[in-house]
């Protein structure tokens, strides 16, 4: 009943143990952002959630930011490598993300590592709209900058444990999260372990699809080496093993329980180390950042998602990336703040992605297709293998170099910004594929004949883009600011490795028929490796907004118009195809509005965020149909987050902290034709915590308390439709212990 009283939400300003420090160019240490002035004086739409808010709302993973940050939608489905991100009408379910992720100033290059457990974060800041000038590739929808605790935050060491269950799940199991962080000297150590027995039941295997075990650790070291020199290093390690891919087939318009027979899961080991140097003199400040990013992962997927033996996919990556950036900020005058930077990275990825066609798949996808074109009086084709491996080995190198400059001018009440980035990105993919089978043509062949079908080659591309930005901010008063921005961003192009199963399938059948001396009149419908390249996506953003801040009340709003060229979309080739591919839609546009407010009167705290997005194709024909004017799939038309909290001082040493929130997204169009739609849905979350002696905290937390049933994702495989469900009601109980007093 008490929780029901608090339907409005809250972003509680961090009171302890960490003083919030979200602005840039801090005196004592380096930060995650590159802006020359504090965000409060920068012409950008930004949302910042601080440590206490992240804890209160159970925001320990990126998906929980959905709607808390207006316009952002990161559906929680699939597995940890999924990280599908939609922001301001931009986004796609695979390949390059539409949002750049920075952790302590380190650009995270691989989307497969976006989804990691957060612990000991000081803040999460989302800059919305293209941030290409300063942040470069993939910062087209925005940039999420995570800032972890610094040793200079002097955070108290803490250990916490949270355990619970999803009681309405078909097979409820244990959900557990344990974390700790510890500061000593110049070091902050943090550790998180998360376990789940899973939420979704595989009706065929009679067990949960999505158990999870993950460990993440971070070591941050920061030290001033001299008066002018500040050094920082952060090392992050992530290790997880999980199931996943709880996709239920759509039958009669309804999602069925997941039911598939083959192995599905994901294992990941990631190691990221970033080293930062800040040198300050009277004339300039130099920030230099380098990072090394290693990833080893392995995904298995029953790609037909049905209890039949059609085909399975493995995707194993071994990647290494090195990034380097230097930004020089000359101290010219009080009114002019120029920043000039140089950025470069190289990433190497060895991707091994074998597809194994099983007996049902060999029959349905290959033999049936071939034999229907062969007159019965001539004979028919048979493949004797029970499994047919199609091995695909890719070596993909990606490199980028960029030079950028941004100048900020302070002219009375105006702050004017102009910047330009010259960005070059190139990539090369070497592919080495092999299909192997034994076939026989009946009646002419009396024994199976082995056939190896190799497919080797290389494709490459390179592209130069210019990313300009101009903005103006008018400080009407100490409390009220208006701003306008025009900026451009881009999302890198790439190669469609996932369509190679289709390519190999068609090449194999063509080679087999050629080996037989049979040539079907109808050419195979497929793309070749040369068609697997997709172009960068580019967007221009026109934005205006205001910011108001007085006392304990804050409000902001923005209107934007985005025009997008070569929008990257996931497409499914027609028919019983097995792959999917990224295609560049000709043109699209996104119009939207975003608003935020927060108010913290006394022990109360309220906050609300809302976004409206109207993202539509301006011109898009997928080769079969025209979708001009239709809504872009997967983009929520509305996001809403309302939060309310109250700190109830029971005694001088005991406080009851109550918090509740509503999180809404939708409606979504699931396909380009807009014939399938998911309605707007609300999820209710709440937390109650009893803090004792400022050392102990005992908490109860519930997610999706109304157990709202919703779908969070849709896709097609082999012409069949599938939906992924949102997480059900989850109840957690936790205990937190601070090892030292304040």
């Amino acid at each position, binding site marked *: 009943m008490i929780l029901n009283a608090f339907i409005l939400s809250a972003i509680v300003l961090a009171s302890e143990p960490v003083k919030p420090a979200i602005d840039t160019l801090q005196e004592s240490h380096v930060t995650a952002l590159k802006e020359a002035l504090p965000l409060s004086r920068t012409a950008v739409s930004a949302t910042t959630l601080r440590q206490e808010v992240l804890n209160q709302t159970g925001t320990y993973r990126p998906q929980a930011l959905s709607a808390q940050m207006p316009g952002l939608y990161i559906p929680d489905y699939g597995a940890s490598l999924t990280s599908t991100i939609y922001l301001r009408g931009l986004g796609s379910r695979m390949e390059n993300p539409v949002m750049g992720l920075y952790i302590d100033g380190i650009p995270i290059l691989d989307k497969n590592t976006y989804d990691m457990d957060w612990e000991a974060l000081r803040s999460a800041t989302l800059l919305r709209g293209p941030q290409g000038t300063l942040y470069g590739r993939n910062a087209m929808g925005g940039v999420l900058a995570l800032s972890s605790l610094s040793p200079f935050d002097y955070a108290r060491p803490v250990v916490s444990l949270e355990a619970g269950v999803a009681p309405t799940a078909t097979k409820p199991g244990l959900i557990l999260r344990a974390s700790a962080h510890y500061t000593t000297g110049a070091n902050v150590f943090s550790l998180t372990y998360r376990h789940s027995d899973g939420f979704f039941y595989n009706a065929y295997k009679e067990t949960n699809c999505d158990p999870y075990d993950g460990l993440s650790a971070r070591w941050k070291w920061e030290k001033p080496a001299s008066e002018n020199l500040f050094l920082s290093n952060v090392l992050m390690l992530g290790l997880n093993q999980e199931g996943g891919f709880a996709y239920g087939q759509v039958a009669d318009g309804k999602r069925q329980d997941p039911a598939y027979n083959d192995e599905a899961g994901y294992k990941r080991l990631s190691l990221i180390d970033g080293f930062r140097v800040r040198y300050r003199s009277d004339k300039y400040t130099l920030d230099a950042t380098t990072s090394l990013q290693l990833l080893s992962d392995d995904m298995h997927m029953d790609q037909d998602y049905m209890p039949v033996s059609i085909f399975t996919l493995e995707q194993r990556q071994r990647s290494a990336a090195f990034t380097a950036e230097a930004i020089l900020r000359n101290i010219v005058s009080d009114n002019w703040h120029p920043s000039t930077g140089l950025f470069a990275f190289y990433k190497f990825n060895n991707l091994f992605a074998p597809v194994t066609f099983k007996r049902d798949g060999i029959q349905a996808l290959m033999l049936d297709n071939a034999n229907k*074109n*062969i*007159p019965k*009086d*001539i*004979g028919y084709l048979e493949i004797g293998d029970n499994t047919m491996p199609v091995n695909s080995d890719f070596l993909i190198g990606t490199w980028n170099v960029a030079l950028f400059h941004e100048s900020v001018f302070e002219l009375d009440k105006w702050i004017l910004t102009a910047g330009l980035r010259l960005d070059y990105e190139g990539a090369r993919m070497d592919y080495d594929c092999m299909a192997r089978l034994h076939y*026989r*043509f009946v*009646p*002419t*062949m*009396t024994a199976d*004949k082995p056939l190896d079908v190799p497919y080797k080659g290389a494709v490459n591309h390179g592209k130069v883009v210019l990313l300009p930005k101009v903005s103006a901010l008018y400080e009407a008063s100490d409390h009220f600011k208006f701003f306008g921005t025009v900026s451009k961003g881009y999302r890198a192009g790439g190669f469609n490795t996932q369509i190679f199963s289709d390519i190999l399938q068609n090449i194999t059948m063509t080679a087999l028929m050629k*080996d*037989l*001396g*049979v*040539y*079907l*009149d*109808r050419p195979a419908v497929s793309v070749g490796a040369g068609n697997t390249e997709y172009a960068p996506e580019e967007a221009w953003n026109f934005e205006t907004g205001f910011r108001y801040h007085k006392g304990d009340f804050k409000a902001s709003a923005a209107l934007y118009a985005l025009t997008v060229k070569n929008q990257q979309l996931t497409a499914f080739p027609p028919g019983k195809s097995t792959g999917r591919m990224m295609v560049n839609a000709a043109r699209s546009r996104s119009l939207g509005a975003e608003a935020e407010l927060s108010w913290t009167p006394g022990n109360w705290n309220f906050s609300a965020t809302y976004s409206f997005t109207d993202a539509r194709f301006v011109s898009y024909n997928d080769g079969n149909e025209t979708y001009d004017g239709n809504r872009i799939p997967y983009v929520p038309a509305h996001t809403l987050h309302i939060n309310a909290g109250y700190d109830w001082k029971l005694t001088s040493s005991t406080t009851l902290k109550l918090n509740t929130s509503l999180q809404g997204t939708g409606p979504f169009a699931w396909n380009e034709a807009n014939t399938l739609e998911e309605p707007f849905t609300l999820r209710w979350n709440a937390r109650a915590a009893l803090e004792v002696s400022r050392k102990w905290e005992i908490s109860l937390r519930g997610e999706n308390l109304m157990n709202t049933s919703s779908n969070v994702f849709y896709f097609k495989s082999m012409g069949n439709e599938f939906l992924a469900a949102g997480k059900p009601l989850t109840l957690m109980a936790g205990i937190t212990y601070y090892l030292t007093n304040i």
Partner: protein
Amino acid sequence: MQFKHMLLALAALAAIGCNKNTPEETAGLKEGSYVGTVTVNSTSGDVFDNENIEVSFTPSEDGKTATLVMYQIKFTPRMPMTLDVTIPEVSLSTEGQDIKLECAEVVPLAMGGPFPNYTVTDLTGKISGDELTFSLNFGATPTSFSGSIKK
């Protein structure tokens, strides 16, 4: 097993059937490819031309026989596919400057093995200069080829 034995017997019959005349003059013949038209006179009376069909001519080492391979031919316009058909053991002999081709009966090879439904009978033809012509029956279907050497 019965089917296998039948195929082996057909292949043996074919080998015996064609290899009759073995003039020494045909020794040292070179292989070549010819491009031309295959004309199929279907049993319904329709005449169907396959244009730009390649036929390879490969003599044996002793020059007594040759193998003809007809690439990507159709026997009726309604066939949704084309086939490579191999005619083995075609007897060779000389007639003036020409090379005579003959074969009374042989089971051709197609789709990976013997193809008795289209057994070749009454094959006659010649190589005259750069021209190759021959006629034959594929089963009950009279068929002919006329083409020039591929350059």
